[in-house]
């Protein structure tokens, strides 16, 4: 009699198959996960995908006048939709339409109609520029029925452009950010990018870090 139980040295078929299947599944899953890594392409910043930068000129986004500079005389209380136009590394002009969230709305109100939290020193004689991307799900809002309120068609978010584009209805979590602007001759020139974090960025720090990175990359 021995204290030790005699063990069958041979592997059972069932055990072999189970181990083989387990190993196969593990290797397969690992390789699938590594293959999934290719699903997300690398992002390369080009001038047309860069955020609006200081010194950019605003040009029409509308198909009929696409690429023509927005003139101060064309503005009213209803938004003129525009894209920033900057310069490439070789000095040629490039419209930053590769990033749809670069779209901005340009408004002109009576200077006295603009109230806080609008940053008045970022406006020029009642001309004020806001992002035109709803901070909720990234749709393009617009004014309807000649009301000066900005309505988002997707989930009925509403903004008040005379008061810093603050949210006055619907689900958006924060106002659409303002941009600094000044009139130079017949053109509108940006004096700053989005002053607070635009759609797609979690907070102001993340946005500022990205903006700094973009400026360095394109310098």
């Amino acid at each position: 009699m021995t204290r030790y139980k005699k063990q069958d040295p041979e592997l059972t078929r069932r055990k072999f198959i189970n181990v083989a299947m387990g190993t196969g599944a593990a290797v397969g899953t690992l390789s699938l996960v590594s293959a999934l890594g290719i699903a997300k392409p690398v992002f390369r910043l080009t001038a047309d995908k860069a955020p609006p930068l200081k010194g950019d000129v605003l040009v029409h986004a509308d198909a009929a006048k696409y690429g023509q500079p927005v003139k101060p005389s064309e503005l009213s209380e209803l938004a003129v939709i525009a894209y920033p136009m900057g310069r490439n590394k070789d000095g040629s002009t490039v419209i930053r339409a590769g990033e749809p969230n670069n779209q901005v709305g340009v408004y002109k109100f009576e200077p006295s109609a603009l109230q806080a939290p609008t940053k008045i020193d970022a406006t020029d004689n009642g001309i004020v520029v806001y992002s035109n991307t709803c901070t909720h799900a990234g749709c393009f809002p617009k004014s309807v029925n000649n009301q000066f309120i900005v309505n988002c068609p997707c989930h009925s978010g509403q903004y008040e452009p005379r008061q810093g584009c603050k949210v006055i209805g619907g689900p958006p979590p924060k106002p659409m950010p303002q941009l600094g602007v000044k009139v130079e001759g017949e053109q509108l020139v940006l004096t700053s990018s989005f002053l607070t974090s635009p759609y797609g960025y979690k907070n102001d720090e993340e946005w500022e870090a990205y903006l700094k990175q973009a400026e360095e990359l394109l310098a």
Partner: protein
Amino acid sequence: MNQWLDDRLHISRLNDKFLRKAFPVHHSFFLGEITLFSLIVLIITGILLALAYEPSNSMVVNSFDPGTAAKPNMLPAAYHSALKINAMPFGDMLRRTHHWMANIMIAAAVLHLMRVYFTGAFKKPREINWWIGMLLLIFAGLTAVTGYILPYDNYAYSTVKVIYAITASVPWVGDWLAQAAFAGRFPGDGIIPRIYGYHIMLLPGILLAMTAAHMLIMIKQKHTQPQYAKRLAYKKIVGVPLMTQQTPIMLMLALLFTGLVMLFAAFIPVHPVEFFGPPSSSGVSNIKPDWYLLWVFGALAIIPGFEVEILGGTISAEFIGAMVFPGIVIGLMFAVPMLDRSKDNQYYAENPTNSPVRLAAGVAFMAMMLVMSVAGYKPELIESRLLTTNNANAILWILTFVIPALSYFGTIGIVRGIRALREADERETLAHAHADD
């Protein structure tokens, strides 16, 4: 010939096992079949469309209106090919048939699900098929949504932007997830090829595989028997065999149904790409998802905006409204068979009024979906002055809970009424029967 095939393929065994499958004779059992026929027509029309479609969002010159050499009229290739399909003989009709069929497939699937729920056909042993059916519904929805994006008109562009935003709203991993799913930051250069892959390969593959599983399990477990089968032959399978009795009925139904949808497609336009135009900087007003996703849209419209940061991840209203809330709803539907604790196998379809709580819960659920879908029309409700911007959310939230509660208790009341009448009837018949003695 038959003998030759039989010697090699054992057709007679196939005949015994599958082709003699008994189908219950009741019109409500055709709903699943209609869903299946829609899937088949969708695949056929989809193949035809794929032959003429160009899955790319790079810009090409519009061959219908090329503009000038100095200023060519550029369109995304996918949108351009949608215009070309419309210009083909019956091309527009083919697109519409595909679109209408997709809507009707989901409608038939939902009705089929309601039939299964209200008659208790999801009970043991058919829980697995209920779950596969739920997965089929989810994947059918995903296939429909990816199909929406393919024409790449302005509507599709807005839709995919919102879907990207919803994907990106997942805390911690959202950005990575959205970029992996949609080929980079929106709108990546490869977004249309990626979604094309989903819509014509991945999702239909999943749908076909799961449909096969759904039906094989159904053949193995047999249909629940309608009530008349209980009186006819207790605990026996009653019905008409697939070959050769059910097959002509199925064929006739498939042809009639397809003909009807073709008629729809011929006369009722759906998703006019020319009207929406190519992706542009101006949004689409009155954009709405299809009816089966309107409830999520409504939930997003009435949920107030908020953002909470937890351990570096942002939990937003979007995530709650478009991910967590539908997750709960779908989870509840998944859990339905687990709420039933019966030990015995379910043979017979039940009369819905025999389980008033189940009936009332189903009606309340549908009422809630309906109210939330109406909430999707919030801007229209405000515009028509039924509601105002200030009270819309509050009123719609109250209705979301009050109407389902009312329909729940209302249904229970009606069922009790029916029962009381039925019992009174029985007492009366009994009393008269004694009087006759």
